[in-house]
C-alpha cells in the first residue's frame, strides 16, 4: 500500500462516502478508513433519504440503490396517554417520478454507497479503527490506526467519523459534546409480510408512510418519535435530549416499550417480529453548538460537525452535502495549485455558508433554546389538544358553544392568556428566521 495519499477520509457513513466518491471521481488518491466490519454496520438512521442531496452526487442513484419505499403520506400525531390528535397529508403528486423521499435501511444503503466510492477508485479499508490523528505542530499529516504499523500519511484528512467524533477531541479541535446538545434515539425494526404492511397503512406496492409523533410519549422530555414503513418491515423509534434523560432519570428502552404499547401504535405492530434494537446519538445543538470545521490539513463533515437540522429531522442530507463540499474544496484548490492549509480551506466554510446547510442552520438557530426553555410544548399542550378533541368529538348532549368555552378555559387555566400568546410567538419564532 502506498504510504501517502492525497486525502484520507475517516468513516464510511453518509458524509464519508459522499466525500470519498467525489474525490475519487476527480482522480485524487483517496484512502477511506472504516471501523465497522462493513460500511453501515455501525450506523443507525430512521431512516428517510432525501433524494435531492444524493441526486447531486449520483444523479442516477435510483437505478441500483437499495431503496425501500417512496413516501406518499405524512402523518403527524400529538399523543396523550390514550389518544392522539393528528393530521395527514397524502398526495398523488408524491407518486410521480422522480420521487422525492424514500425509506432506506442504513446497513444496506451504506454498502451500496461505499461500493460507488470504490468503483470510482477510492481505496477502502474496513475493520480498521483510526486511533489518533498524526500532527506536525498544528498541522494534520495523517492518521494512526489499530493495525500493525498503522500510520498512514496524507495531505488532508476529512473527519467524517460521526457524532462522537473522538479524533477531533483527542486532537483538541473541539470539546466534549454537552448533554443538552445531543439527543439519544433508540429504535427497533419489526418485520411483517409486505401485503400486511400495505393493507395496514393503506398503501400500494413501493408506497410508504411516515408517522412523526410528539407529546406524552416522551414523558415530558424534549423529543419526538417516528414510525416508518419499509418494504417488509417497520422501523420505529424515539429520541430525546440527553440532558433530559439525565435530569429525569428515564431509561430509554422503557420509553420505547411504552411507545410500542400506546393504543394507537400497538395495532400497527401486531404480529410482527422484532429483529434488531439499536441506539445512536443525534447532534441537535444547532448553529450555536457547532465546532470549527476546518484547519491545517483537516476538515470535518457530517454529524461530527453537528450538521443536523433537528427540527426537520434532516441529517443524512446535510452529511452528504458537507462531505461533497469538503471534497470539492480540495479538488478546486488542487486544480489551482494551492496548498491545503487553514487559510485556503476557509473556502469550505464559504461553500457551507452559501449552501442550504448553513442557511437552514442559521435560520433555525433559536429553535433548540426555545424548546429547551419551554418544556410545556411537550407536556401541557399535547394533553390540552387531546382533551379539546375529545370534548368536541364526543356527543353527550352538551351544546357546541359550551364545549368551545370549556376548551378555551382549559387552555387559559393551564397556560394563562398571556402564556398562550407568548407560546404562540415562541413557536412561531422557533420556525422563523431572524
Amino acid at each position: 500500500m502506498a504510504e501517502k495519499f492525497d486525502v484520507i477520509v475517516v468513516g464510511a457513513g453518509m458524509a464519508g462516502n459522499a466525500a470519498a466518491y467525489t474525490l475519487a471521481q476527480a482522480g485524487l488518491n483517496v484512502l477511506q478508513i472504516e471501523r465497522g466490519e462493513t460500511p453501515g454496520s455501525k450506523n443507525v438512521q430512521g431512516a428517510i433519504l432525501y433524494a435531492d442531496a444524493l441526486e447531486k452526487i449520483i444523479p442516477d442513484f435510483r437505478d441500483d440503490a437499495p431503496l425501500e419505499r417512496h413516501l406518499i403520506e405524512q402523518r403527524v400525531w400529538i399523543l396523550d396517554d390514550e389518544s392522539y390528535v393528528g393530521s395527514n397529508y397524502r398526495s398523488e403528486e408524491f407518486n410521480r417520478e422522480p420521487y422525492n423521499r424514500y425509506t432506506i435501511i442504513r446497513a444496506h444503503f451504506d454498502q451500496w454507497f461505499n461500493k460507488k466510492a470504490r468503483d470510482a477508485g477510492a481505496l477502502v479499508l474496513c475493520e480498521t479503527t483510526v486511533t489518533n490523528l498524526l500532527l506536525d505542530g498544528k498541522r494534520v499529516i495523517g492518521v494512526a490506526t489499530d493495525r500493525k504499523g498503522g500510520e498512514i500519511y496524507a495531505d488532508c484528512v476529512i473527519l467524517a467519523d460521526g457524532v462522537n467524533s473522538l479524533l477531533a477531541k483527542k486532537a483538541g479541535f473541539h470539546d466534549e459534546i454537552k448533554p443538552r446538545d445531543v439527543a439519544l434515539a433508540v429504535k427497533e425494526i419489526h418485520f411483517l409480510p409486505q401485503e400486511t404492511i400495505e393493507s395496514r397503512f393503506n398503501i400500494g406496492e413501493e408506497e410508504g408512510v411516515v408517522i412523526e409523533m410528539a407529546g406524552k410519549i416522551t414523558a415530558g422530555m424534549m423529543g419526538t418519535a417516528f414510525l416508518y414503513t419499509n418494504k417488509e418491515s417497520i422501523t420505529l423509534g424515539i429520541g430525546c435530549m440527553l440532558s433530559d434523560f439525565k435530569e429525569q432519570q428515564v431509561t430509554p428502552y422503557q420509553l420505547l416499550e411504552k411507545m410500542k404499547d400506546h393504543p394507537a401504535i400497538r395495532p400497527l405492530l401486531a404480529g410482527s417480529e422484532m429483529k434488531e434494537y439499536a441506539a445512536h446519538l443525534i447532534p441537535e445543538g444547532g448553529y450555536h453548538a457547532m465546532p470549527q470545521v476546518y484547519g491545517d490539513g483537516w476538515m470535518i463533515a457530517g454529524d461530527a460537525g453537528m450538521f443536523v437540522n433537528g427540527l426537520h429531522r434532516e441529517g443524512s442530507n446535510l452529511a452528504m452535502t458537507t462531505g461533497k463540499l469538503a471534497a470539492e474544496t480540495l479538488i478546486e484548490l488542487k486544480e489551482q495549485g494551492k496548498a491545503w492549509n487553514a487559510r485556503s480551506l476557509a473556502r469550505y466554510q464559504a461553500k457551507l455558508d452559501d449552501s442550504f446547510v448553513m442557511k437552514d442552520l442559521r435560520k433555525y438557530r433559536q429553535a433548540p433554546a426555545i424548546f429547551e426553555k419551554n418544556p410545556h410544548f411537550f407536556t401541557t399542550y399535547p394533553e390540552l389538544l387531546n382533551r379539546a378533541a375529545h370534548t368536541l368529538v364526543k356527543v353527550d348532549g352538551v351544546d357546541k358553544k359550551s364545549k368551545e368555552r370549556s376548551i378555551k378555559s382549559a387552555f387559559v387555566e393551564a397556560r394563562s392568556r398571556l402564556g398562550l400568546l407568548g407560546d404562540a410567538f415562541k413557536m412561531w419564532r422557533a420556525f422563523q428566521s431572524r
Partner: protein
Amino acid sequence: MIKVEEKLFQNRYRVDAGRPHITIKDPQLCATGCDKKQCTVCCPAGCYTEEGNGRVVMIADGCMECGTCRIICDEHRNVEWDWPRGGFGILFKFG
C-alpha cells in the same frame, strides 16, 4: 417491565473478549461521589448496574457504541471511552 437482554439478544456482536472498550476510571468515585448514577439509568443497553453497596459495575458486551455514558457523566468525567478494535463490537444488520 421488559428486560433489555431480550432486546439485545436480537443483535449481532463480535465481542473482543478481555478487551472492553469502555471502563470506569475511578470506581470509588462512582460509589461515594456520584448521587445520580445516571449511567445506570440512561445506558440504552443496560451496561451499567449499581450493586447493593453503591458500587457501579460496567460490562460492555451489549454496548451499542452510542456514546451516551461518556457524555452524560459530565460532572465527574469518570468514563474511559474508546471505540472497540476495528471489526469488533456491535454489527448492525439493519441500523
